[in-house]
């Protein structure tokens, strides 16, 4: 990447952060509200675990680790990709045309236009859950695990970012994609809140190969938690594959996006 291009992105990102920080109270209040919102989901899992001790063989500590990995990576994904969720508006209003005539990658322009700092709430909850989970599940942190964690987060962000990118690319053909965003981006999170072994076999295959969300938290957790992986459908090597899967998913999504951009016809207003 050329130096001046990098400069432009940096300016756009700081502008977006400064814009958000203009309303400090709103930001703080939103932060608090998000904590309450997530507390609702955590509460549900806690009630279940207090009553039944385990979910598909996952204890409280392990469930917390699983959840922490999901919430943290989801927050990190939102930092870079939250603008994709409103991509429909750009296409419907014809604003995407404006991005095309600028001498800068249109995707880069969209991504740097909104840098979601409210993800701080996800990081707070995610780190707390990971620490709590490590402690209760007795994770032995080794140097290799400490190195692998950022790699997993990188892969998880690419998977979830790739999914958002692919869903946005649908707009080039259908113009609208709001309901699709709702199902694929928001509702699907609910699926990996729990270990995927609760699902029937075809669903586990689906979440591994076609819509590989299981790589976001479920498979890598096996490595960190030293789970033997005998309940897995696939070879245990799968627990190390998150970064690779991330690169594959994102490459495919980007390819689809490029085809979409070439296919794009302005709505004409």
């Amino acid at each position, binding site marked *: 990447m050329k130096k001046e291009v990098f400069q432009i992105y940096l300016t756009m990102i700081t502008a977006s952060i400064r814009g958000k920080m203009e309303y400090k109270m709103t930001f703080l209040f939103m932060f608090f509200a998000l904590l309450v919102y997530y*507390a609702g*989901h955590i*509460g549900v899992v806690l009630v279940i675990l207090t009553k039944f001790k385990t979910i598909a063989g996952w204890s409280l500590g392990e469930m917390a680790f699983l959840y922490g990995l999901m919430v943290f990576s989801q927050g990190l994904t939102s930092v870079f990709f939250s603008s994709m969720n409103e991509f429909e508006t750009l296409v419907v209003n014809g604003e995407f045309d404006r991005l095309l005539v600028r001498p800068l990658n249109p995707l880069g322009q969209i991504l740097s236009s909104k840098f979601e700092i409210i993800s701080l709430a996800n990081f707070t909850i995610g780190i707390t859950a990971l620490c709590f989970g490590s402690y209760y599940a007795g994770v032995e942190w080794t140097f290799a695990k400490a190195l692998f964690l950022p790699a997993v987060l990188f892969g998880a962000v690419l998977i979830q970012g790739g999914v958002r990118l692919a869903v946005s690319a649908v707009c080039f053909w259908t113009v609208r994609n709001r309901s699709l965003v709702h199902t694929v981006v928001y509702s699907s999170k609910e699926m990996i809140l*729990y270990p995927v072994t609760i699902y029937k076999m075809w669903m586990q295959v689906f979440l591994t190969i076609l819509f590989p969300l299981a790589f976001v938290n479920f498979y890598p957790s096996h490595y960190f938690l030293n789970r033997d992986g005998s309940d897995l459908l696939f070879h245990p090597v799968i627990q190390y594959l998150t970064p690779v899967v991330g690169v594959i998913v994102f490459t495919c999504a980007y390819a689809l996006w490029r085809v979409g951009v070439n296919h794009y016809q302005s709505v004409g207003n």
Partner: protein
Amino acid sequence: MTREVRATDAEAEAVREFLTGSGLFENLYLKFAMKSFQKQLAYKFEYFIGVFNGLLFIFIFTSLWRAIYAGSESAEGSGFTSGSIIAYAIFAMIVRISMSMDDMSTIGKVRSGAISLDLIKPMNYFSMALSESIGQSMFHWFTRVVPILAVCLLMFDISLPVSAANYTLFIVAWVFGYFIMFMINFLFGLIAFWTIETFSFQLMKYGLFTLFAGGIVPIDFFPDWARPVVDFLPFKYVLYVPTALFIGHIGGAEALKLIAVQAFWVAGLGFTCWGMWGAAQRKLVVQGG
């Protein structure tokens, strides 16, 4: 300025026409319900995704309970059997779908200034909003609840209750639950009259609903120390009570007691809505418009 006057005139004209067309004044709210029903018909794709979403959640929660009950020996004695918990999960989700309503309507109107047009109309805003909401829900009943129910009856080992008592109790509890839900949404919507930032409040409301309404976990599973709080909050009367009465998990005197508490909440919230609506009107600031 001229344009503004004309817009108001046209609006007044439309209202007058609307009133004459609807004959009796009571029919006005029925018309709002009908219009709202028709509006929903316009979005076909949204509709299919909505049905798909509902089935997806049912699929997730039934899988969850099946796994929990398979892995825990004490689970069968928890008040729900492995069969009845699946029925609970499915019907709780269906009740949730039947109650889905547009909780951003008032907020959107305050933000755009359209609320001022509703205020000059010779009618009660609360009743209008309620009729619109009922119209939407009737749409959800016919187009979402019925197909999702049909799919679930085929796919899962569940059956509809046979006793008329279950249906009677359910209908009463559902109506009361619906009013409670609507009024909570209405009150949260009124926040828009005081502050521009409303989404945070909505998020908190969703968080409270997820945990305390019993949509995912039946209230019975809460630890004893938490029960007084959960039982006091209005949320469980929205989803848990209608669902538990429908599947026959609760019956007899206990059911009637819960319905009485529901009625109490409906009255209390109704009174609060009335008071808050008065306060909100005095507070209204329309930006531009």
